[in-house]
Structure formats: C-alpha cells, structure tokens
C-alpha cells in the first residue's frame, strides 16, 4: 500500500494504459471502428446485446472484475485480497481483479466502442456509479442477473432494493455507497472545516481541491446555495452553482479539480482542505497518524452508490453471479467494510462487524443512522440532454 500511495490511481491508470500498447491499439481500433460505423450513418442503437453472447462459465472457470482503487479489503503483508482469496479457494474460480476504474466517464469512453460492437470489453463485472449504471442499463449494455443464482440478494438494504434506474435491481447490485463531504488536514486547520465558508476561507486560498465528479461537487455547492439537488431544480439554479465554482477557480481558491488523487495532495500538504469522499478520508487518516478528518457539510452532502453489473459482452455471467452472491454474505460484506470504510449495502453486516471491530459497527459512515442520512442528498437523475448540458457547463467551469 505504501508503494501504491506514491502514485494516484489516475496516474497509475495512465501508466497502465501507456504500457499496455496492445490494449491501447485494440482500444483505438475499437473506437475508430465505432466511429466509422457512426460515420456511415448507421444508427448505433444497442439492440444487439447479451443475445449474441453464450455463457461459457461452466467451461471457463474465470471471472474478471473492474473496480476502483482502495475498494476491497487488502492484506499488506500477504499482498492479496483476503475475501477474494477465500472465494478463489471455495469456488475454484480464477478471479482477475483489476483496479481499472478511476473515473466513470473515462472508463465508459474506453469500453463504449467495444460495447457498441458487442466485442468483449475484458471484464465480466464492472463497478460504476448510479448515474453511469443508469446509462449502461438504459443502453442495454448489461445482462439481467439471475435471482436464483444470487440467493443473498435478499440481504440488500431496503433503501437500495428499488432504485429508479433499475427497478427491482434486475441488472445491478450495490457494491458500496458513500458520502461526499469535506475533508481537511487537522494540523493545518485545527478548527476544522464544517461549512463551505470554512472551506473557501481566505487562509485556504490556493490549497483547496474539489472532486471532478460533477454530481458531488455541484450537489454540495447547490445545497450551500439552498437548492435541493435531489429535486426538480431549474437550469438557473444549477448555473448559479456553476458561477460560484467558476469564481472560486478564477480567484485562485481552487488548486485542482480531480478524482481519487486529491488524497496524494493532502498527504504532500499541497492541499489543506477538499471536497472528497468519506471512505478515502478515513483510510488516509488511518494511514497517516489520524492527520485527516471528514465531515458532512452543515448545508448538506451527497450520497452516491457504486453498482456491480455484468456487461452485455461478458461470457462468464454465472461466475460473475457467484462472486456477487459471495459478497452479499453479511460476514464477507463486514470484512470488506472494515477495510474500505464506505457504507455497507448488506443487511446483517452490522451484526457481523461487531465481531470484527465494535467501534466500526457504530460508525455512522459505514452503517448510517437516520440522522446522518438526513444530512445528505442523492443527485437527481438527469435526462441525457440535461446530462450533456450540465456536464458541459461543469467541464467549462473547471477549465476544459
């Protein structure tokens, strides 16, 4: 993990991408071919999906999983993932676990060409955030999961069992949820950062970082301006929040806008306070003598979930379902939660957590109580047209 921390996940992904030239060329070819199809005027509708793929799970005992960094229990001494090792033994599956997702959009951009053409994207399970999961399901890029193969599906928290983008959870299962809120360096800012006014205080000028995940950064700013991002907000209200962000950037308050790699700048001291993710900050604090802290802003934070899904191009659906079922066992889920420190979606895991670490079982950031949940909002689902419009405005504000 020490070596891991030297490089941000984004950087590591960049390096991996650069080093695997074969993969690179394949990717470009895919995009090029997709572009060609689009160029010929063929409507790239996603009707051809799972139909063309035969499940080879019985012949090929393997499953390939794309996940985010620091998102599965890791044993630094053994250099492996204990829960994954246990599953390998019990199921006989050859599991390839890759921390290949560091940004929903970038990951989508990399695989969409193959998805459109129905070519194997190289993963049997992907882990993507709600709004991106909504896009995959809408476009038919996922396979329906077989309930009979995942008896543990009944363990999903009631609040997560039915979501607007996937009624009845037919195509997805929550992996973890988390909060976006404020993180800060306790040595530099002993008074703490509890509001956006604290964050954008003159003393922090040039040492603030915010998330490149639009819904988290904008959701927090909108709540600061008294707008509910989970409701029917207007375009003007969203653009007001964009103006606020724009001003903080042009006045030099915001140093950088990035994904997971803000943690690197917190460690180096280049950033003093951030809009960041709960689990990241807890892991950072644990690894750095409790130097960092996380809080949900008084005006409100955001709640997001990442979802496990089986891509339409996967030929290992049954194996993927075996894996999903395994991680919905309360004892296993508790073991993962004890490491990742994000919200555990599995009913019964809290009781199991008592056996691992009673303090963590009480943590409102892993097993949130009603009072904590009242402080956060889930960003509203957007129509594709609005999504493009808002993402454009956000990208423009952050300099792109």
């Amino acid at each position, binding site marked *: 993990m020490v070596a891991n921390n030297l*490089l941000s996940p984004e*950087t590591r992904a*960049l*390096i991996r991408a*650069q*080093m695997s030239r074969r993969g690179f060329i394949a990717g470009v070819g895919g995009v*090029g071919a997709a*572009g*060609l199809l*689009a*160029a010929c*005027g063929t*409507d*790239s509708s996603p009707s051809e999906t799972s139909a063309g793929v035969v499940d080879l799970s019985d012949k090929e005992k393997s499953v390939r999983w794309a996940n985010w960094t620091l998102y599965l229990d890791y044993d630094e001494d053994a250099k492996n993932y204990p829960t994954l090792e246990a599953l390998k033994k019990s199921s006989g599956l050859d599991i390839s676990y890759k921390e290949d997702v560091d*940004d929903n*959009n*970038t990951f*989508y*951009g990399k695989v*969409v060409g193959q998805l459109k053409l129905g070519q194997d994207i190289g993963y049997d399970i992907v882990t993507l955030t709600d709004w991106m999961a909504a*896009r995959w399901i*809408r*476009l038919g890029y996922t396979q329906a999961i077989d309930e009979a193969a995942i008896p543990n599906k009944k363990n999903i928290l009631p609040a997560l069992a039915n979501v607007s983008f996937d009624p009845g959870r037919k195509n997805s299962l929550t992996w973890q949820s988390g909060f976006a809120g404020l993180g800060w360096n306790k040595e530099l800012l002993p008074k703490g950062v509890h509001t956006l006014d604290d964050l954008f205080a003159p003393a922090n000028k*040039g*040492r603030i970082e915010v998330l490149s995940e639009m819904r988290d950064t904008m959701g927090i700013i909108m709540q600061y301006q008294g707008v509910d991002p989970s409701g029917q907000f207007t375009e003007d209200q969203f653009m007001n929040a964009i103006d606020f962000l724009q001003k903080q*950037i*042009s006045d*030099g308050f*915001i*140093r*950088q*806008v990035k994904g997971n790699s803000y943690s690197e700048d917190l460690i*180096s*001291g*280049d950033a003093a306070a951030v809009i960041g993710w709960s689990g990241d900050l807890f892991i950072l604090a644990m690894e750095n003598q409790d130097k960092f802290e996380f809080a949900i802003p008084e005006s409100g934070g955001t709640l997001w979930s990442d979802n496990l899904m089986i891509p339409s191009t996967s030929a290992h659906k049954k194996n993927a379902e075996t894996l999903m079922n395994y991680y919905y066992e309360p004892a296993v889920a508790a073991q993962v939660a004890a490491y990742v420190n994000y919200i555990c979606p599995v009913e019964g895991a809290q009781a199991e957590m008592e056996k691992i670490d009673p303090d963590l079982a009480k943590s409102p950031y892993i097993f949130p109580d009603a009072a904590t949940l009242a402080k956060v909002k889930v960003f509203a689902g957007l*129509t*594709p*047209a609005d*999504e*493009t419009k808002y*993402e*454009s405005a956000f*990208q*423009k504000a*952050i*300099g*792109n």
Partner: protein
Amino acid sequence: MAFVAVAAKRSSLVRGLKRPSTPYLLLIPGLAWLLLFFIVPIFTLASTSTQTPASSNEIGAYVQTFRFANYIDAFSGAQEQFFRSILYALIATLLALGISYPLAYAIAFRSGKWKNLLLVLVIAPFFTSFLLRTIAWKQILGSEGPVVTVLRSLHILGPQAGLTASAFAVVTGMTYNFLPFMTLPLYASLERIDPRTLEAASDLYANGITTFRKVTFPLSLPGVVAGTLLTFIPAAGDYINSTLLGNPRTKMIGNVIESRFFQIVDYPTAAALSFMLMAAILILVTVYVRRAGTEELV
C-alpha cells in the same frame, strides 16, 4: 559519368528493381500502414466533426448533418485554451533551444572522450516512462521538495506559496520532457560542421563571436529547425503536463479535447478541435519552415 559506371557495375544487383512495378511493390507496406492508421482515421475524424446529436438525444449518439458551424462553436468555446497551448509550446520550445544549444555545442566540440557517455545521458530519460518523469516534477517542485524549500528559506517564496499547479510548472515540465528532441538534432547538425570552416574563419581574423554568428550558427540551422519542430509540435498538443502539473487556469487544448471526448462524450466537438489543432500546427510550421528556408532538411 562515375555514377553511370557504378550503376552499371551494380546492375546485376538491382536488375530486379528495374522492373517498373518493383518500387511500387516496395511501397505497399508503408502505404497500407498510412492508409489504415492515418488516412482512414482522418476521414473518420472529418466525418465525426460535422455530426450533430441524434434526435434521441442519447449520450454519444450522433448523426451526420454536415454542420460545419461545429467548427465555429468549437473554436469559440476553446479559444482561450487554444492560444494558451500555442503560447506554452512556444515558450517551452525557446527555453529548450536556450538550454540545448550550449549543451549540444559542448557535446559536439568540447566533450572529447566523454562524447558517447554524454549522448547516452541525453537519451537516458527515455528509458523511463514519460508519465513517471512528469510525476517526478511534482515531487521536485512540490511544497516539501528541494526547490520550494530553498526558495522559501531565501524568502523568495512566501511560507504558503508553492510552485506546482501553476503555469510555471506546466512549462517547466514541457521544456524538460521535450529537451532531448531539441538536443539530438542540434547535436547532429553541429557535429557535421567541418572544423576547417571554423579554422578558415579564424584565419580570416574573425573572433569567436563572429565565427559563431557567421559560420557555426548558420551551419547548424537545419538542426535548429528540426529541433524546434520536434519540440513545438508535440508540446502544442500535450495535455499530460497540464493535467499533472497545472491547475484549472492552465488547461491546454489537449485537455479540452480529452474532456469533450471522455467526460461529455461530445465526439463532434472533440473531432473539430483536433482538426483545428492539426491545421493550426500545419500552418505555423509551413510559415516557419518557409521563413527559415532550410528545405534540404525537411
């Protein structure tokens, strides 16, 4: 005459080449490569650049409508980053030239037995990944790094000021990363200079400065042109340095294209911007090469 004689002697060897089809056959692999990896993508790019969103408004769904106004929209939305890219690339090229010229000169004329070692050292950075080298600059210029510590203790920098996430860091990173592309062509052309021309200059009572101005520099011009082109062209399209060492106010055109392509899934604008960048570089380079007047080189 001599050429004819030599050609006659070699005629048995090259008989095969004399068949009119042979040169074309030899061209096939290269042309196929160009066709597949340059011409086809260029056409795809051109066709993508004039598309507009499909009626479904679905993310990433575009149809061809030959809307050339895409170019105007794309440019007006990104002109700031466009000019910034050209400016940064220009500064980095000039800095690289200023650093490389003395270096290449020393290696070519003054290094003696160390010549090969020095050349290897110039190329050595290529043995590590471009990204890792750029990340290294984050550490070098970081707030705990040596540069900032020294500057702070000299009170040149305030206790809170830093060097990373700035235009300075971006240009420094670019200068460093493209330095070998400047040094090697410069060295190659300096090394080719016949020492007798320098002796002749001093025989004609030229002092060191005049010799450099009238003999060495003009003779090294092909190297200067090649080096500046090899630095400027990739630097203008670079976005890694800006991503890793910059801030939201130092974004370059490469960042905009990346964001349009991946974040917004707006392929037409990304394609239009790529085309404009290509055109801008092509025009700048043509004007430059014309003015420099070194056709023999390029």
